[in-house]
């Protein structure tokens, strides 16, 4: 019963060019649809195409470039393409993780937008058969002075906490940044990490003909219809008006869904499983069929709905949360249903697999859609969009920078600046201890959780420095990966793999596309050099308001392994008298540094270049020192430079430091505040310091003594000492004061 050429279905309008445009499809894309199916689509079909062919689902602008990312390594079980990436950590265990953006919804309704972002990424992870063990989040907001910023911070943070805390997974790390370029487009990138057995990982591809397709979870409502298309459209002045129905998260329902899913997986009931994310039923059903080389027929009369009178179009595009689609073993159907009923969740057989490779949707006795299932995905337009490389910026020579204030004042100012200050106000709203496995809480270099009863531990981090990416996309992409790598090494973990979340502006603009291409190439280069493959990711484009794009923000979520979590290293100083050492070269790069921006008022220059060979060797060296118990504290050096890193180590412990003067060859400010890469600060017992230096010399790694732990101030020889109390007030003070409306 195919759809005849001229059928006009119940209540469905004729397709007009306006309607096509409203669905975010370009005229040539619509022509492609006509050519593909040989007739005018029904409205439901148009909706299905718009969902499948928008940027969010089809990756049409990014696909060609993402192919360049390294995705393989002996420990990679599943790379990009599934709900989440999977890596092997030995002992029959696998780590499943992914990061995803929920930027646009979080701008429109920060609490619910952030909430559903966390819910969605958790589902991606447990869909694969993993129990979530930790979350992270990278959030970027506009200028603190912008009238909307405070409201967005407050809503997003409450929302991330609201969902994760209630669901019962610890949030152990993340990143919080401010910049005026996010004024109209804040970013919410949520990452979830789960643990599974290597022999019971579940995938989306259906298999077998005539298999029941089961709908599980919450009921379908008119939530977020057009959410996926919205995520692929630029905002204009009127975006406040065009508010789509907002999706609301239900963490309690998701907790039940998790337990029910894991239980039926244990009972071996599941052939294939796919969560309903963006464009819900459409994307999940098409993917299950297409990946399994099968057709799918859906009967929408069977779909559990929350509202009456929902049309086929609405059901196919609804983004109601906490829902799953599964193909079950027919003989296990009853068992699976009993489990779902026990957990109080909806369970309905809504379709079956067919040999036809067609995607057929029935509703109220009509065929509302009849489309070739493979082509829906495979024939989606792919663009190799024109791009121009970002112009190279001049290198700023340290000697040419004039310094408006003393080192002591600069340190105090920097440590209390929005980007460098403590994010305690944020992470104290996240339950970071639930589960009783959190070995390192937020506030250090990477979160560390114990795996089951140990001895293994998992380290994780989320990083990117958008101002570097803007100044030089290639170096910036490299740097994001390198920083994630460094944060993992700093706690003693072997970096294993990353997930990336690529947030950019409008790819139809060649400059933006140039940023994208540059960053992806940088990421690829770094991943290759560091043996740090990409196993999952997400692309969010069109982050622009009134023609102004966000800073290019390719967030990198890194995961690393500790064979013995008891050996995990923290960044706070440990004992007075310990020797402080610098690992890495310190020529003093001030271009794009926070010192230059916050103290000198100049957001300028080329960012620090990243030598990947150095990153790799210095990282391995630091891990070795930790394993050999030769160091007492480790911290990587990133934003703010060496002196900021030292201040952070002091603030984490309440112990100060006495430091030698900068070497004569480097201007003092550049030495202390430059943002050269591949550097770490380590401390060692005085008796071990010489051994560490000798080991470094033997390995050909630059290392030098900086001073000694002790006292209640950061005291650089020849400079005014800064009391820790003063630094602490600045560090801990800014964010709470700002949120209280006092900064």
């Amino acid at each position, binding site marked *: 019963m195919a759809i005849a050429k001229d059928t006009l279905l119940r209540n469905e309008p004729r397709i007009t060019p306006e309607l096509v445009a409203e669905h975010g499809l370009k005229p040539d894309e619509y022509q492609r649809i006509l050519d593909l199916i040989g007739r005018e689509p029904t409205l439901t079909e148009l909706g299905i195409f718009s969902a499948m062919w928008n940027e969010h689902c089809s990756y049409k602008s990014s696909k060609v470039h993402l192919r360049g990312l390294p995705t393989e390594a002996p420990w990679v079980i599943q790379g990009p393409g599934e709900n989440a990436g999977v890596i092997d950590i030995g002992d029959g265990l696998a780590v499943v993780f992914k990061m995803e953006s929920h930027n646009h919804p979080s701008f429109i*309704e920060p609490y*619910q937008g952030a909430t559903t972002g966390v819910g969605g990424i958790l589902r991606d992870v447990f869909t694969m058969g993993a129990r979530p063990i930790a979350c992270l989040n990278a959030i970027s907001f506009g200028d603190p002075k912008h009238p909307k910023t405070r409201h967005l911070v407050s809503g997003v943070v409450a929302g991330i906490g609201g969902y994760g805390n209630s669901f019962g997974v610890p949030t152990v790390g993340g990143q919080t940044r401010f910049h005026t370029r996010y004024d109209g487009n804040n970013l919410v990138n949520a990452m979830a990490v789960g643990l599974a057995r290597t022999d019971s990982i579940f995938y989306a591809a259906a298999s077998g003909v005539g298999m029941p397709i089961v709908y599980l979870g919450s009921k379908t*409502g008119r939530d977020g219809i057009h959410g996926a298309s919205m995520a692929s459209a630029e905002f204009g002045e009127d975006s406040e008006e065009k508010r789509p129905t*907002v999706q*609301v*998260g239900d963490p309690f329902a998701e907790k039940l869904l998790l337990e029910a899913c894991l239980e039926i997986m244990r009972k071996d009931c599941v052939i294939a499983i796919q969560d309903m994310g963006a464009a819900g039923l459409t994307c999940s059903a098409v993917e299950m069929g297409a990946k399994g080389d099968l057709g799918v027929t859906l009967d929408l009369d069977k779909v559990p709905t929350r509202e009456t009178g929902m049309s086929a179009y609405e059901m196919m595009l609804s983004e109601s949360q906490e829902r799953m689609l599964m193909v079950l073993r027919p003989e296990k159907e009853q068992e699976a249903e009993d489990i779902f009923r026990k957990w109080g969740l909806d369970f309905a057989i809504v379709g079956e697999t067919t040999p036809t490779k067609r995607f057929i949707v029935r509703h109220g006795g009509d065929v509302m859609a009849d489309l070739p299932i493979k082509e829906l995905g495979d024939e989606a337009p792919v663009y190799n969009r024109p791009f121009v490389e970002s112009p190279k910026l001049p290198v700023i020579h340290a000697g040419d920078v004039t310094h408006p204030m003393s080192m002591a004042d600069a340190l105090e100012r920097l440590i209390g600046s929005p980007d460098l200050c403590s994010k305690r106000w944020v992470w104290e709203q996240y339950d970071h201890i639930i589960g009783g496995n959190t070995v390192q809480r937020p506030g250090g270099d990477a979160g560390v959780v114990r795996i089951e009863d140990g001895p293994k531990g998992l380290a994780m981090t989320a990083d990117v420095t958008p101002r570097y990416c803007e100044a030089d996309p290639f170096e910036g992409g490299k740097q994001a990966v390198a920083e994630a790598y460094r944060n993992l090494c700093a706690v003693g973990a072997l970096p294993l793999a990353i997930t990336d979340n690529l947030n950019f502006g409008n790819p139809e603009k060649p400059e933006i596309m140039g940023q994208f291409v540059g960053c992806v190439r940088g990421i690829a280069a770094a991943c290759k050099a560091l043996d740090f493959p990409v196993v999952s990711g997400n692309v969010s484009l069109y982050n622009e308001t009134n023609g102004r794009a966000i800073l290019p923000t390719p967030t990198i979520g890194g995961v690393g392994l500790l064979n013995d979590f008891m050996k995990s290293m923290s960044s706070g100083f440990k004992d007075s008298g310990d020797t402080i050492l610098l690992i890495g070269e310190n020529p003093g790069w001030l271009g794009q540094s926070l010192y230059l921006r916050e103290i000198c008022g100049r957001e300028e220059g080329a960012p620090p270049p990243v030598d990947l060979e150095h990153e790799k060797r210095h990282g391995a060296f630091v891990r070795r020192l930790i394993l050999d118990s030769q160091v007492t504290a480790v911290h990587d050096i990133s934003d703010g430079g060496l002196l900021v890193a030292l201040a952070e180590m002091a603030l984490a412990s309440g112990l100060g430091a006495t430091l030698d003067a900068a070497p004569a060859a480097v201007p003092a400010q550049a030495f202390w505040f430059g943002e050269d890469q591949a550097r770490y600060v380590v401390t060692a017992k005085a008796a071990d310091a010489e051994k560490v230096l000798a080991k470094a010399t033997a390995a050909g790694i630059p290392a030098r003594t900086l001073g000694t732990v002790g006292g209640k101030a950061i005291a650089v020889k020849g400079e005014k000492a800064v009391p820790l109390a003063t630094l602490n007030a600045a560090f801990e003070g800014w964010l709470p004061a700002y949120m209280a409306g006092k900064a």
Partner: protein
Amino acid sequence: MKARVTVTLKSGILDPQGKAIEGALRSLGVEGVASVRQGKVFDIELEGTTDRAKAEAALKAAADKLLANTVIENYRIEVVG
């Protein structure tokens, strides 16, 4: 002057709390509950004004700016005297 602002979820917006309460009422044996939706009330005392219209304008501002999230909620203002 006293007033009450009642904030309710727009129809079609999922109400997880209401849903959970619905289920709980049923299992407590309260019969005939078809659906529950939860909202908020704010009982506000205003001082320094006796002008009803002024009060209503102030309350409307309060509701728009803070009490209601107009993306997902509706509100109603009653000045009770």
